[in-house]
């Protein structure tokens, strides 16, 4: 019985993140538009876009290989699995033990591996420039992310996301300098990983500034839809991660009753909405930076993460 319930919760979470992903993207766009005093597209516009994309025929470049057509599915699957393993409204998911937070970071790495390869498949200069910049960003963002993971794991004596978020929500961790540094580093990484301003601009098609969009330039139709929903899922994943790790308010404990799950669901939606609004406001208030300023931005994240880890290493013996 408990097993059925647990698998229900796990399945519900997988569907929930998938269903919410376009809505969150729509929310961010709406907030940005409203702050610019535009009406903006409706909140459900991303759903309509996806629907339109999957109905259209896919135009594939003449020399595209099988990798080009398989990559969207691989990207989507890896991102979805990673997103399904991050606790959203309840900790202690059925399959949370199968991949810890290091594996989740690595799963996102797998998705990026295929995305960058797909960008190079047709052999256009834009695809190449996008992939090349993406690996540059990732080569700093991924270690920074791992340093954040180290910090939290050292505090919790565990790399399991559920354990970490339970520790932070149910026991006295107190305010720690390391946690604050890790939070800032995680936010910087999340901005870079999701191709947001100031690292990349999700709304631009200006040749020399785009990174993510340049990689997916050749995609259309259903393939583009898969990539778009993958990107939305990644945003949900990072917001859920920040929520689960640094703001685990209201998250249902394993084995709690249905009421706790409802509370957790409400709290989760509120957290996502808050995150989306804050992201929109942040993006409006800052300009995109030059590509070669990005390493400094991410270098700061890496250093913060490293210092946070080092502090914990050093303070352990005291």
């Amino acid at each position: 019985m408990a097993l059925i319930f647990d698998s229900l919760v796990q399945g519900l979470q997988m569907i929930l993140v998938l269903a919410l992903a376009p809505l969150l993207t729509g929310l961010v766009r709406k907030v940005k538009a409203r702050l610019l005093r535009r009406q903006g597209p409706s909140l459900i516009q991303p759903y309509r876009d996806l629907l339109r994309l999957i109905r259209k025929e896919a135009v594939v470049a003449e020399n595209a290989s099988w990798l080009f057509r398989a990559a969207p599915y691989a990207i989507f699957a890896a991102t979805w699995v990673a997103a399904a393993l991050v606790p959203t409204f309840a900790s202690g998911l059925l399959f949370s033990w199968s991949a810890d937070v290091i594996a989740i970071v690595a799963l996102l790495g797998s998705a990026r591996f295929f995305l960058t390869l797909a960008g190079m498949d047709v052999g256009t200069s834009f695809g190449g420039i996008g992939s090349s910049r993406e690996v540059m960003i990732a080569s700093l963002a991924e270690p920074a992310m791992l340093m954040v993971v180290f910090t939290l794991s050292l505090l919790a004596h565990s790399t399991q996301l559920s354990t970490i978020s339970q520790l932070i929500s149910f026991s006295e961790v107190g305010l720690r300098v390391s946690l604050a540094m890790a939070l800032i580093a995680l936010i910087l990484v999340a901005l870079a990983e999701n191709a947001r301003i100031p690292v990349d601009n999700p709304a631009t098609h200006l040749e020399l500034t785009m990174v993510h969009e340049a990689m997916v330039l050749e995609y259309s139709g259903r393939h583009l839809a898969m990539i778009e929903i993958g990107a939305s899922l990644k945003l949900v994943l990072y917001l859920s991660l920040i929520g689960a790790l640094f703001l685990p308010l209201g998250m249902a404990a394993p084995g709690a009753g249905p009421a706790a799950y409802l509370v957790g669901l409400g709290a989760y939606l509120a957290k996502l909405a808050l995150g989306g609004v804050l992201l929109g406001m942040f993006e409006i208030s800052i300009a995109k930076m030059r590509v070669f300023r990005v390493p400094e931005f991410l270098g700061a994240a890496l250093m913060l993460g490293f210092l946070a880890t080092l502090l914990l290493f050093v303070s352990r013996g005291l």
Partner: protein
Amino acid sequence: MLPAALGADAVLLVLGVVAGVTSRIRPRWLPIYPLCAIIGAFAAALALAALLNGGVETMVLPLGVPWIGAHFRIDPLAALFLAIVNLGGCAASVYAIGYGRHETSPGRVLPFYPAFLAGMSLVIIAGDAFTFLVSWEFMSLMSWALVMAHHKDRGNAFAGYVYLVMASFGSLALLLAFGLLAGPQGHYDFDTMRSVAAQHPLAGLILILALIGAGSKAGLVPLHVWLPLAHPAAPSHVSALMSGVMTKVAVYAFIRIAFDLVGAPQWWWSVPVLTAGAVTAVIGLLYAVLQEDLKRLLAYSTVENLGVIFMGLGLALAFKANHMPQAAALAMTAALLHAVNHATFKSLLFFGAGSVLFATGERNLEALGGLIRRMPATSFAFLAGAAAISALPPLNGFVSEWLMFQAVLVSPDLPQWVLKFLVPASGAMLALAAALAAACFVRAFGIAFLGRPRSPAAETAVEVDRFQTGTMLVLAFVCLLGGILPGFVIDALGGPVQFAAGGQHLPMQASQPWLTLVPISADRSSYNGLIVFVFIAFSALISAVAIRTFASRAVRRAPAWDCGYPDGRPVTQYTASSFAQPLRRVFGSVVFQARETVEMPGPGELGPARFSVTVRDLVWERLYAPVAWAVGRVADRLNPLQFLTIRQYLSLVFAALVVLLVVVSLWR
């Protein structure tokens, strides 16, 4: 067990001799590669059996130095590495059945190949210092001969020369280490050495010498310079053996000395090992990212992976010295598992590079491209290898990387302050190396196999034969299998880990529910490659099914969009060096002092603009070039000594004799 393993090596040596004798007349009459494959499979089966049995077997043959004899010995550690060597040798031999067919000078490869295989096995089953060093030198010489197989190609003679110098230097360090271990009484066989050396006064010096000796063979920075020259110069199946297997022999030598022969470690021993490993991991990859030669890129990536392995060994030393057997077992398992994994995917990648070379005659990335359409099997296997080496789940590279991170995360309990700073720093280096590896292999695969062909050779390439593709696909499958069922491999590593790391091994993984990997305890960390793989496959499948059901199935082939300005010429693609440019600017401006200069013609001038990049190899310039210069200088000065008269020579000999006698008499 041991006599059979020795017999296999003897047969290999005989094969080498026979091939050598007949190489002038008919080099190909003896099916060397199939025979090597059979012997390799046989010896690998023996080694695996010995590994699972876990016993110790010794044997003495009346060879070598009369009063010592030749000792041979198989224990769990030796069995593991014997299995790696022979499995790698077997795979390379099967690959070479196809690859070797088009060898232009088989007489320069066939005699040395079986001898090289035998040499590596003999190092591992050697039971005394003398046999060990002789086999080590034999292995180095045979591989040197294979490096020099195409000695007329540009750069190969230089590669061979640098290799020979560095190999001699490494052997000298090992010779001194064993000399110190043997002590004045000359306990050359390992068993007595172990019992005598328990509290060796110069143990630290022995460790440093072992690190230099084994590290120069493994390619630790700054002793790596020969590796990216020599490994690519050999025929590709030999490159795979040198990178995938011979470097593991170096790892074995280091483990044998540092964890077995010198006795209980001091904590500070881990500092040089950990530092060398971490620096090697990052520097190796930074070199690899900038390479344009596919095989040299792979060789630099070998340098990186060996850095990761030594990082694990350094952690294991620290834990062992601090009496934390469980953590030591974790770090040791991570290092050994990475050694096993690296042997699989690096062999696979070198085979892939070899097939590309075979099909196009090119190793230069800038002349490749679009091979995924011409060589589907090779590119699929290479893609799997690239994903595995980039530590992507659910493949095997991720598992060892994950264990390594877990080992870093248990180390705050180490009491020493130096280690408290060093371990997180090396953890950060490991994270950086993991991310850079993905960048490096996206570039390698993307430029060589994707895009449009950059040369006529790449445009007309045809898929290689079944022996080559078959070997590669099998290895790719092994990479996946090792990633989704790592528990069985880790259980097999239990014996060697227990032997080397101080009495413990990880809990049995195969008995965990759902075959989950639980290195310490379930609430601390766990990873299940199988579930992750099933999850990914499942969600890819349902999304594909959903797309098939609900979406439009129409596909139109059209010219590439490229923002509206498609250009049919392949030169408009991103090249390998332009792909590396952001990374070169970010990391290379410090590490390699990379500088970009643009010369623009003035207004009205008709000359072309020029763009040039300078990348400096500081290790070579600051460390090796001065030494080479000094040696050359001294040699010049001493040159007149070659042109003396007989009287002058005789007086020189006499003077030398007197000086030596005086020294000896003063010494006493």
